[in-house]
């Protein structure tokens, strides 16, 4: 079978003043029917400035093909062939990077995820279950006829989200059907699952999907609603990143004659739990961490009212942080100036595995 080569959708040869300007252009001019496959937008948050980020894109094998003001066209050759995308960088209190491409999600767009995973101080947008809930409620209140066409929802065995049936079982459900909206409600009640991916149809407007790994795909219709959702996702992620910045690591000198004595001080970020953490859950949490490439060591845990303390090495970044947990709160303390990426990954882990309603305390 001959695979039709994909080409990146074209944009006019103008200099966009800002990433927002480009989105305005999309809102009025973008026609999904005119492109091959679907437009997917993938978001990331970065503490790098634009120059450093672009340098890292180039180090990761991307070339800058052409610039359109605040937008750039980039390309990377991989085993599957040539991959192309537009990319924009915006500076808020942290950097926001958005990739726009109509290449295929599983085949070529993985290159974007790999980049976001490997770039220092950079992470993909993560959509919290509560945020997805809020977006869904908002959409429903404006569109009575909204349908959910398919969804993926899951729960971990250690999750504290209420479930009527066998709450200690970890499960993932994938559902296709025109009554997805009703089924999601029913399954959430019975099985305590939380949505991770949704494909939504708003009759007469558009069909699109959102995925908690920070990707948004337009299947048909207008792009406006999806762009609004992306904007809200960015705002939420930027505010979380700002909160997480409270966690930092600093060296202070202690005056000792003849010694260059410095102590390392770590300032925490706190995650407030909606659930009441118990001892068994705390211990299971440690085992689950190992499955996600976190290595807990020097752990101590006490029963009664629960208390747990552990140092944690993140195998993906080689950074360390300390975890302190009691019934109501998880506290994370960075063990180096570079641990924010690990802390965020840990927060995602908590949301997915333990408490979907946990919140970073500002």
């Amino acid at each position, binding site marked *: 079978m001959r695979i039709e080569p994909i080409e990146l959708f074209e944009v006019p040869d103008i200099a966009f003043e800002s990433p927002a300007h480009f989105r305005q252009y999309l809102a009025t001019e973008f026609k999904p029917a005119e492109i091959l496959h679907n437009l997917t937008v993938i978001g990331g948050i970065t503490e790098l400035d634009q120059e450093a980020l672009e340098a890292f894109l180039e180090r990761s094998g991307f070339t800058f093909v052409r610039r359109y003001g605040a937008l750039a066209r980039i390309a990377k050759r991989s085993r599957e062939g040539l991959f192309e995308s537009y990319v924009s960088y915006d500076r808020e209190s942290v950097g926001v990077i958005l990739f726009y491409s109509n290449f295929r999600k599983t085949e070529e767009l993985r290159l974007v995820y790999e980049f976001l995973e490997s770039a220092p101080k950079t992470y993909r947008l993560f959509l919290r279950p509560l945020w997805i809930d809020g977006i869904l409620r908002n959409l429903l209140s404006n569109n009575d006829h909204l349908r959910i066409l398919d969804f993926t929802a899951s729960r971990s065995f250690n999750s504290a989200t209420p479930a009527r049936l066998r709450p200690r079982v970890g499960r993932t459900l994938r559902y296709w059907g025109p009554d997805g909206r009703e089924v999601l409600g029913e399954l959430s009640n019975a099985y305590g699952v939380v949505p991770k991916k949704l494909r939504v149809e708003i009759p007469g407007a558009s069909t699109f999907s959102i995925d908690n790994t920070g990707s948004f795909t337009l299947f048909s219709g207008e792009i406006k609603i999806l762009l609004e959702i992306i904007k809200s996702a960015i705002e939420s992620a930027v505010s979380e990143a700002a909160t997480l910045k409270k966690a930092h690591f600093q060296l*202070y000198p202690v005056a000792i004659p003849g010694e260059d004595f410095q102590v*390392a001080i770590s300032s925490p970020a706190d995650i407030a739990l909606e659930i009441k953490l118990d001892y068994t859950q705390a211990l299971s949490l440690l085992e689950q961490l190992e499955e996600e490439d976190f290595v807990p*060591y020097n752990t101590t845990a006490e029963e009664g*009212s629960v208390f747990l303390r552990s140092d944690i090495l993140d195998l993906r970044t080689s950074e360390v942080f300390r975890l302190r947990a009691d019934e109501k709160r998880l506290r994370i303390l960075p063990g180096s100036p570079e641990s924010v990426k690990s802390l965020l990954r840990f927060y995602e882990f908590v949301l997915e595995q333990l408490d979907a309603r946990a919140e970073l305390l500002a």
Partner: protein
Amino acid sequence: MPEEAASSRFDELLASGFASQLLAAESEELERLLPSERSKVDSELERQKRHDDLLTVAASAFAPGGRLRRETGYEFITCEPLVELKEQGCKSFDVLVANREQGVGIFPECKSSIANPGPEIGDLYATISDLESRVEYLEKRTGVPLKRREYVFCVPAGEFDGLSRAIAQKEEAGEVDPQKQPPIKIWYVNKFEGLSLSLLTQMRRRDEKLSQHLDPNLTRILAAGYEIADELSVGCFPSSHPLVKASAALVSAHRKRGGDLSEFSLGELEEALSSFTVIPHYDINNLGPRIALELSNHLEALGLLKRKDAKLVLQVKGKSIETVLKRLEKSYAERKAENSARERARAVAVEKVLGRYRRFE
């Protein structure tokens, strides 16, 4: 029978025709003793980790940049002051915090649990006397004037009641004279709802001045319970459990170079343990290499490490950091439990065999 004597008696008997009876008795006894020895090793490790955590909390309350430091001028100076003199038989406290302007040093000693407060109080006074005779040295070494000194037990919140009673009893009984000897103060750590350090400002039938700090401001803030947010970021302390030190060194090596962590050089171990950010001690440049040597000798004696040329090779299967950490902890506990169970089992086996022989006679 002392263990050494039991062991040589065991060897004698082994050579004298009682071998099979003796070995059978030993192995039976070993099987019986192993589970309890194993749980002793585990709980000792847990106890020491909890102790390290108390130490971290006490030190962190006085972290640079924190409110307590700002409002009282008391700052964290070092963990384990004087531990570099351990080989001379000098005992050391867990932490030194001081106010340089006032010339006051506070020396907390952390106890994760106090089952028997009497002897602990006695030990504390022994440590105080070691310190008092080396104040000049410590002032010179740290550059911190220590004209006045305060001594503190730092315990978990659940422990202060029994401890304060024991202190009051000793003072009432005249075993300790708080007018002539330094009065002991108590800090307690609450870690189940938030994390805070408090001063116990009153003890039964004791002049409250004796329980409070020289600096009324410090007393006031600690009395209200000081919430800890910023923490000292440490790998371990000089007297941490060997496994805690080994983990800190291994993780540090992993972050530095990655790769096969079952093999490393003594130099690498020394480097990892000679860093202020791993062990916050003023003398770590000299102390680190000693701690590294002690640790490698200890692991070697347990059969968990072998020296091969200039390399130290861990005797655990696996090379990745997560496997090495896990296997090392497991093998350590097994070897340690087996060693102490074996010694006791031999003593019992000797007694059993000799007992039978005597009956036969």
